[in-house]
């Protein structure tokens, strides 16, 4: 178990930066959250963040990812929830790759 003091300081600085980014929005909302426009924006932000995060990998990857995304959406709606959607999506990607899709 070896560690250099210089590396430990750098790791501490990195952890501080990550916490500053994560906590910054949370703290700022104590004041910004009183504004109705900000509250309305944050009502829409989670869904917008999620589709933004999903769409770029989907457009960059091949058909297997699309098969997985369709399976995820359909199974979440029909089988009712997170677990069947997630397992179905992963299974669909594995099957699609086995069938030759990338």
């Amino acid at each position: 178990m070896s560690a250099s003091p210089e590396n430990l300081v750098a790791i501490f600085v990195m952890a501080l930066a990550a916490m500053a980014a994560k906590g910054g929005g949370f703290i700022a909302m104590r004041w910004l959250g009183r504004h109705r426009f900000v509250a309305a924006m944050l009502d829409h932000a989670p869904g917008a963040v999620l589709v933004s995060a999903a769409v770029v990998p989907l457009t960059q990857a091949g058909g297997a990812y699309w098969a997985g995304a369709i399976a995820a959406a359909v199974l979440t709606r029909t089988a009712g929830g997170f677990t069947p959607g997630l397992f179905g999506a992963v299974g669909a990607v594995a099957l699609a790759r086995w069938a030759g899709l990338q």
Partner: protein
Amino acid sequence: MILPGLASLPFGIGFGVAAAQKGLSAFETTLMSFTVMAGTSQMVALDIWARPLPLVALFVSVFVANLRYFVMGAALQPHLPHLPWWQQPLVWYVTVDQNWAINIAEYRRGHGDLGRFLGGGFIMACIWSGSTLLGHLAAGGVLSDPTAARRLGLDFVGVAVFVVVATILFRGKRDLAPWAVAIVVALAAKWSIGGNWYIVIGGLAGGLFGALRDYRKTGEKTPS
């Protein structure tokens, strides 16, 4: 949270291998993963890791690479308005992509649970740190080959979580236009800027569009 945690396995192993090649010890690699717990920014930091260590550049690059969490934290705060000050850093720590996505959906449906949020985040931190340690120990060995995880579809778990949670959060017609705006702006941001700014920019654009549209519908004045 175990399956979403396993999504980080191939990336974690890859990061462990890269950290070993940069000269970090197994302890330093694991400590970094457990305390920073943000894979992309750790990878960015490794890129600029040199002697003497550029501390300011490390701080700025990790902060900027994690700016999407700023938006996620802001969206989370209204659900935890009276959280004691000493619990807040714990919530910030466990605010990572999949854990946030799952729990923001629960809070919105009125089923949010702080214990589950913190516990899920801790499990993800253990899996992430463990996978980077595994990669470090196996650097150059069979575990550094990500094709096995890819064959099993595990590289898709991260994206699958976003799709599943978006499907759960979908409220019908009122979400269509803001989400379409978010998608178009995210793709444009990825194409024009690169990196992972597209999550922040697309999320803000979709949120802004939705808020402006709601204000117009209710006939209220938009803030100047």
